[in-house]
């Protein structure tokens, strides 16, 4: 039968010329007469236009992405990143963080061992070859003193070695080309004359965040802020020395020096270097201008108005030099404006409108800075701005891609504002935006995600009907975040308002799982809620069981501490509950 089919296919494909299978063999091979007229017709018409569609090329992960889009989150399971073993499923946010770190550090340890003993790992049995599993080479191979060796060391990001090589080259008398010197300057300026750190990015990003926030608070004390930044630009360090040694400097050299100085907080020198650049009639690029804007904003001992005027000056120079501003320019301006607090609101809006007028699409980080500026520290002095509603109106339904390193801070600040304004519908809007497309990836690292969901859930407890709240409770906890005891207390109070106290034993059981067994404020709350009112008998029994449980946790806690701490209220409540349930013995 396959032969018959093939003939038919032949016939249709080679409509114009008489194919090898003529009409007669077809008749011979199949008996169904229904198909014969079709064949005849095809032959009669002769020319048949066959439109071969253009071949689709699929991405190599297309199949997997299609499959992945069919899978939704399982609310009863632990996140996929953890091993599905009862012992290895985390029960608190601390545990989940440490499990993930353990996994990552295991991978790093394995990679480290492979890379430090490459000769033991040479056997390659994978077909086709998998390059990323083979050991990498981190030691420079070229030993002689030459520019190629210098380039190699620069590529391997070995700061000290490249500086030494550069010095050796100069002593040997060979001139180093401008490009290589520029790339050496890049390396030095980016890493601030120290070796690149080998921490994994968890610790790095946290450190930089804490430093950033600490620096904001300490804005008035520049010295302290300087000490907190690990990597300061020391004067007369290697970068400056090499910069001075270079026979010819082009704009790239100046630019990279300025950027390095700003990155390591040598602000005055950066501005001086910029004037030197202008004196040499060179042009700065947009990144340098961004760095300079940051430098003017960070310089201490100036009033915000002066700083803003300086920034405007820089922008005018930028326009005069025909340098196109990019998204980072405006984001840097907004980031600096939020330090000016009240003064910064009007300029911020102006900047935002400018950005839109030029056609640069604002990113999530832009909106984050605006929110921070307008809702700074929840001050209640004047009326709260309503700008968040405009922002959400602009953003609903849009999908984002990362364009600024601060993009992942937007959702956290948006939810903070919603919680401050006690506006549940806005919170739903924000959550909806989070769930469109791939935006969920912008939720940020662990602590931000926990913060977002804690605020969201507290707002739900406060403002939403209890059934919906309980549904969200089942949905979010524990698969998305682990509640803090304050969150659980909020939930208990919401239950209290809605008079659904029968859920309390369930919540106590859940909170034991999340490690809140020894949180005394939570236990007091539970006991007090249970003991306050009379309830139908079966509920009393459940409450009494729960109270017995809590009592046993108090007792086991005694083993840990020297002096048992039994708050009087809890004792009261426990006694009352036992009495009501008829367990007078235990009372």
């Amino acid at each position: 039968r396959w032969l018959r089919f093939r003939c038919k296919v032949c016939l249709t494909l080679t409509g114009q010329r008489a194919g090898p299978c003529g009409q007669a063999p077809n008749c011979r091979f199949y008996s169904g007469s229904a198909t014969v007229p079709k064949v005849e017709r095809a032959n009669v018409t002769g020319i048949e236009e066959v439109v071969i569609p253009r071949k689709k090329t699929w991405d190599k992960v297309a199949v997997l992405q299609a499959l992945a889009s069919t899978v939704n989150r399982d609310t009863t399971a632990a996140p996929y990143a953890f091993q599905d073993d009862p012992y290895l499923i985390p029960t608190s946010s601390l545990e989940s963080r440490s499990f993930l770190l353990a996994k990552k550090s295991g991978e790093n340890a394995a990679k480290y061992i492979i890379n430090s003993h490459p000769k033991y790992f040479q056997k390659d049995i994978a077909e086709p070859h998998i390059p990323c599993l083979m050991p990498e080479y981190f030691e420079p191979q070229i030993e002689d003193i030459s520019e190629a060796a210098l380039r190699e060391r620069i590529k391997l990001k070995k700061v000290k070695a490249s500086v030494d090589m550069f010095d050796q080259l100069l002593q040997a008398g060979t001139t180093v080309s401008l490009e290589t010197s520029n790339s050496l300057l890049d390396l030095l300026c980016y890493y601030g004359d120290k070796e690149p750190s080998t921490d994994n990015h968890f610790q790095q990003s946290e450190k930089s965040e804490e430093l950033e926030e600490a620096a904001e608070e300490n804005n008035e004390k520049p010295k302290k802020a300087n000490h907190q930044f690990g990597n300061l630009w020391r004067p007369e360090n290697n970068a400056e020395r090499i910069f001075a040694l270079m026979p010819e400097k082009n704009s790239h050299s100046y630019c990279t020096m300025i950027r390095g100085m700003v990155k390591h907080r040598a602000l005055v020198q950066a501005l001086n270097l910029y004037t030197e650049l202008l004196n040499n009639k060179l042009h700065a690029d947009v990144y340098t201008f961004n760095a300079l804007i940051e430098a003017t904003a960070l310089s201490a001992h100036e009033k915000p108005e002066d700083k803003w005027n300086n920034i405007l000056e820089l922008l005018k120079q930028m326009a005069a030099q025909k340098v196109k501003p990019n998204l980072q320019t405006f984001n840097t301006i907004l980031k600096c404006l939020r330090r000016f607090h009240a003064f910064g609101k009007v300029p911020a809006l102006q900047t935002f409108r400018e950005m839109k007028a030029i056609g640069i699409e604002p990113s999530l980080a832009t909106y984050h800075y605006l929110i921070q500026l307008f809702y700074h520290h929840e001050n209640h002095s004047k009326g709260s701005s309503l700008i968040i509603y405009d922002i959400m109106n602009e953003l609903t339904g849009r999908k984002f891609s990362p364009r600024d390193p601060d993009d992942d801070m937007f959702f956290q600040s948006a939810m903070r504002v919603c919680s401050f304004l006690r506006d549940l519908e806005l919170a739903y809007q924000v959550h909806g935006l989070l769930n469109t497309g791939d935006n969920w990836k912008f939720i940020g690292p662990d602590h931000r995600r926990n913060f977002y969901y804690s605020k969201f859930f507290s707002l739900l407890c406060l403002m939403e009907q209890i059934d919906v709240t309980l549904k969200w409770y089942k949905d979010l906890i524990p698969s998305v975040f682990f509640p803090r005891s304050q969150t659980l207390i909020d939930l208990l109070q919401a239950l209290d308002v809605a008079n659904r106290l029968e859920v309390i034993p369930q919540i106590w059981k859940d909170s034991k799982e999340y490690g809140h067994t020894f949180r005394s404020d939570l236990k007091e709350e539970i006991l007090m809620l249970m003991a306050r009112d009379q309830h139908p008998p079966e509920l009393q029994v459940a409450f009494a069981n729960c109270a017995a449980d809590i009592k046993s946790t108090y007792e086991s806690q005694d083993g840990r501490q020297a002096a048992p701490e039994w708050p009087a209220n809890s004792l009261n409540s426990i006694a009352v509950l036992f009495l009501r349930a008829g367990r007078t013995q235990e009372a």
Partner: protein
Amino acid sequence: MFPRVSAILPLRPLSRFPLCSGGSEAAIVLLGAPHGTVRTKNNVQRNFGTNSVNYSKKDEQSAPTHGISKETESQESVKENTKKDLLDIIKGMKIELSTVNVQTTKPSSRRQRKSVEATIGSLQKTLEDAPKKRTKSVSPELEAAASAVADFLRFDKQTTKSELLRQLQQHEEVSKTQKDGERTKISVSNIISDMKVAKSATGRVSTRPVHQIQFDEGTDSLMGQKTDDLKKSLRKNMLKGKRLNIFYLKTVTEEAPKTETAPSLWDVEFAKQLAMVNEQPLQNGFAEMIQWTKEGKLWEFPIDNEAGFDDDGSEFHEHVFLDKHLKDFPKQGPIRHFMELVTCGLSKNPYLSVKQKIEHIEWFRNYFNEKQDILKESGIRLN
């Protein structure tokens, strides 16, 4: 670091108010909305819960209706009870006020407190003096209570008052019909939860001004039903207005001649930072497989057996038809036989590349050339 909910903790020492019995749920619930803390709100709510307990004890003696619909009751005791409840609730309101004012440090709040106290005093007097009326409409005590609440909240008094009164009227009707029907137990709690639902609809409108007891003059008239207009007017403010006027669209969009330079270290590191923004732990097994495919550890779907295997671009006929490499060998004789067997074997060998097969044949050629003297002895010709 982050303004967490725990920032409210310092307000914990506020003592709870043990006696406060329930009465006008509307007042309480609206008071629940103020910017005061969750704690304070829950104090109030908790007090209400206590009251529900007290109230249910009296269920057998009175018709099971909620506290507000007093005039539909015929029992004196209930009426007195509820009047007492209302008074207590207003007392509770007063205390609620003081706590709210404690948190917001504004001098005007003190003035407010005094005015509310005055109102409450007058309200109490009116309550004690007012005779009980049995009318279908909302009783004057309730009206007075509602206006006191509206005064306290100080925004859009008319709407608030009318809302409150409307709610109360609705409840009266509901309770009346239910009472006329069977004696269903309308527990106070259900009413509370209903009220809560209603509150969130109306509360949304009023939530924002509550945070600022001082109200902006400009938006005073706009609140209430005109939130949408307000939002629209603000949207105009955000998007339309003065800009910096430093850059111009024309000059910015003209493309400067781009010189192609290799991305510098700054660009590379910036790209890496951007990639880290979106990094999240994997959500399911397919995402993990996608990551492995991108790293090159996993075969690409749909599986192509010859992925990554090029075979130097040689075709099958170069593997199979190896006769042309036998040109240098004699055309007949045992050597030819042998070499034909060799080529037959090589053509069936899937593991060698074409070059390796040719090398095999070359090796044989060299070998036979070297062993020429032995061959001559055996009389085999090798030309």
